[in-house]
């Protein structure tokens, strides 16, 4: 008998504060473990989650307070997991930021611009949309 595929979506909503990153990480990690992710997938997922959540917590609401919602569900018959971040902060497409020039030397290299670049390298199908006043960033993590 094969393991049952988890299909139900789970979600968490937290204040968009850096201090809440550990809660978001454990929420995602628990799901990924249940879904059968190995250590490398867990680390890559952690990286993707940190880069997105830190962006939201740092920029989405500027000086105001606001929330971030994270939802997660199984996809492709249990072979992948889809993760979605939503916030109601200012409209911003992180995928519109030019990618850093990774061929420059240390002296020439700008400090920054790497977070979203990393996200796009470790995750698949990274997509941004703006729906009903929400910034929505979706991506897919393959389990193997």
């Amino acid at each position, binding site marked *: 008998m094969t393991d049952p595929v988890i299909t139900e979506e789970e979600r968490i909503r937290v204040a968009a504060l850096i201090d809440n990153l550990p809660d978001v990480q454990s929420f995602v990690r628990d799901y990924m473990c249940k879904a059968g992710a190995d250590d490398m997938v867990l*680390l890559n997922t952690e990286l993707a989650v940190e880069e997105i959540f830190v962006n939201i917590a740092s920029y989405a609401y500027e000086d105001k307070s606001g929330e971030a919602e994270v939802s997660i569900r199984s996809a492709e018959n249990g072979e992948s997991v889809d993760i979605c971040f939503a916030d109601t902060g200012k409209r911003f497409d992180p995928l519109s930021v030019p990618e*850093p020039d990774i061929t420059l030397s240390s002296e020439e290299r700008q400090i920054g611009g790497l977070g979203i670049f*990393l996200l796009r390298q470790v995750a698949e199908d990274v997509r941004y949309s703006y729906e009903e006043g929400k910034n929505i960033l979706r991506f897919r993590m393959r389990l193997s």
Partner: protein
Amino acid sequence: MSEIYRTPEKIDIGTNTAFSEDLKEIASRGIFDLVLDMEDTVYISSVGLRTILAMDKECKKNGGKLVIKNAGEMVNKVMEITGFSQILTIV
């Protein structure tokens, strides 16, 4: 004068401030030949890369060198995909 610094298990938004301050403290003592022993580090995010890049620039500017050793699988992969493995000295 050179020094070896053992990096923490995780270099993320939560630990980076302390990591960054440790490196600044080393630089403040005039040490610009630095070995980062990354054996204990299983995870690094962009904030940690920025700290390492800033220290690498500081070392080079002062005629020294930053060397990374014992980087594990995840750290190596992140260094590679960001091109950091081309600009940093990794042994």
